[in-house]
């Protein structure tokens, strides 16, 4: 039992600590051997953690475990030092905004959020007051009396966030909170998340879009295929993206002549292959320089160009790259304390 752990079954500090946390459904492994320690804002941290990973990587499973919806198959998870699984005392201090667009469409926004506040332990009038204030904070003052069924996607997302924050939780878990939101909704949501964190709330939000993390926090956890593959600051992830060998695919009239010229002139090109007769794929460590060289060669040699694409200009490619390298930590600046049970060394 850690120092922060309590014996009464109530929440201690606003922290999430996992030790060799694993979750599988039958033969499918959703999360594997994740050890970490996340905490609210302090001297070196904003209290906001971005959980970054491609679809199906295990982000929602992690949040489900932290929200007490799921029981770990192996290992442990503690929120404020206490297991959240089916523990109402802890759940009263957790706010969850699920990814699914699941709301009671027949209720008005105010009725829905009030009901959720009531279930979190607020009295009738208090829950109504809090619900109205929460909806107002999320810019739904004029719409709160309308049935949710008539809300736009952005309004529904903000309603979910209002219910997640109405009881002023100490740990806020947000599953893809910016999905489908318009710029106005996005701005409101980001401001509210920052405000919650500034008030001492631990915020963990999942996304598969890097710039969404950058808009909120410097602290990021990369998760892929159920494993924590890296953690650290966003700029370290950016560095990894640049370090990651990049593929550029060109379809033109004479792909072999183009390949021969670039192979002789560009030292950054570390691999060339021909997926088809008219197509050449370059692997480079300096994408921008290689793009410029390709363009120059195409013009000077008067090639008939059909397309230039990159098959792996996505985070997914980075995740695969990191998994293949067997890495487990992005940098020295990480505030997430990855546990001693991590299976592989940090990436330096």
């Amino acid at each position, binding site marked *: 039992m850690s120092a922060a752990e309590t014996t009464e079954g109530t929440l201690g500090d606003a922290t999430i600590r996992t030790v060799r946390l694993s979750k599988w459904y039958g033969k499918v492994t959703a999360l594997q051997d994740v050890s970490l320690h996340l905490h609210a804002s302090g001297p070196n941290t904003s209290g906001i953690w971005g959980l970054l990973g491609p679809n199906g990587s295990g982000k929602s499973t992690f949040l489900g475990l932290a929200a007490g*919806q799921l*029981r770990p198959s192996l290992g442990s998870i503690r929120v404020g030092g206490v297991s959240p*699984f089916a523990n109402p*005392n802890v759940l009263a201090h957790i706010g969850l905004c699920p990814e699914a667009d699941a709301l009671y469409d027949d*209720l008005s926004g105010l009725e829905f959020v009030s009901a959720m506040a009531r279930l979190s*332990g607020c009295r009738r009038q208090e829950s109504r007051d809090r619900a109205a204030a929460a909806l107002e904070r999320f810019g739904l003052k004029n719409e709160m009396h309308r049935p949710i069924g008539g809300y736009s996607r952005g309004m529904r997302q903000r309603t979910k966030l209002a219910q997640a924050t109405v009881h002023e939780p100490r740990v806020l878990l947000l599953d893809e909170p910016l999905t489908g939101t318009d710029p106005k909704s996005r701005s409101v949501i980001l401001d509210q998340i920052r405000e919650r964190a500034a008030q001492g709330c631990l915020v963990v939000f999942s996304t598969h879009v890097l710039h969404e993390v950058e808009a909120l926090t410097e602290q990021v956890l990369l998760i892929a295929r159920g494993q924590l593959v890296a953690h650290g600051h966003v700029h370290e992830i950016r560095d990894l993206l640049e370090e990651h060998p990049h593929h550029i695919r060109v379809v033109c009239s004479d792909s072999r002549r183009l390949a021969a010229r670039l192979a002789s002139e560009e030292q950054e090109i570390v691999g060339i292959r021909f997926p088809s007769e008219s197509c050449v794929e370059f692997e480079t460590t300096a994408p921008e320089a290689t793009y410029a060289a390709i363009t120059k060669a195409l013009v000077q040699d008067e090639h008939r160009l059909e397309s230039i694409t990159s098959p792996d200009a996505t985070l997914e490619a980075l995740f695969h790259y990191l998994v293949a390298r067997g890495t487990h930590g992005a940098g020295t600046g990480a505030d997430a304390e990855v546990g001693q049970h991590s299976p592989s060394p940090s990436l330096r």
Partner: protein
Amino acid sequence: MQNTLTIAGRQFRSFFNGATAYIVMAIVLMVLGFFFWQTFFLFGRATAREMFTWLFRILVFAVPALTMGLIAEEKRTGTIELLITMPVTDAQVILGKFLGVAGLYGIMLLLTLAYPMSISTLGNLDWGPVWTGYVALALQGAAMVAIGLMASSFTDNQLVALFIALTINLFFWMISLFLPLLPSELASIFEWISFNYHFDSMTRGVVDLRDVLYFLSVAAIALMVAFRSLESRRWR
């Protein structure tokens, strides 16, 4: 208790926010009126016994229609995830849902009072059996609502939930029709577990504690199974 009542209130209101409650209540009252009044004047007696018999049969079909979406719809839409992340226990969710439907069922029974009141204007109605009949309907309703809730907790498909609940209700009703075909030892057991056996004695004006316990036991067992079924989601 606050959480249970909050869930019950939300469930109760949701019936009236949509058309479900109005449609089911209208159909029950119309079908009951049709069958009851059709034969009432043939008997020439001021009694509500036939009404209870018809109401019993109609509710076997109507209650599953009210309960089919209780958990199944929440599973399908994903709102069950919201609910179980709240600091509420599974028992509170089940009990809240049960009370929500029980409230609507109670209103439906209240509306049927129009029939015995009409009978009383036509003749000298003995209100004793009427009140015990309503006690029987309330108890049978509790059992059928619990069975419907249990069926709804098994699936995320409302039609499947309807089919399961209907099958169980029909079993408890129809089993009494097949008693002559069964060996005497089995017949007495199946007679005892049928709804009719306990219901009929109450509509005659006799409230036997064993009949009360029977319906309450069926309701308690069904609620327990529903609770375990909901709880099992967490143990995947």
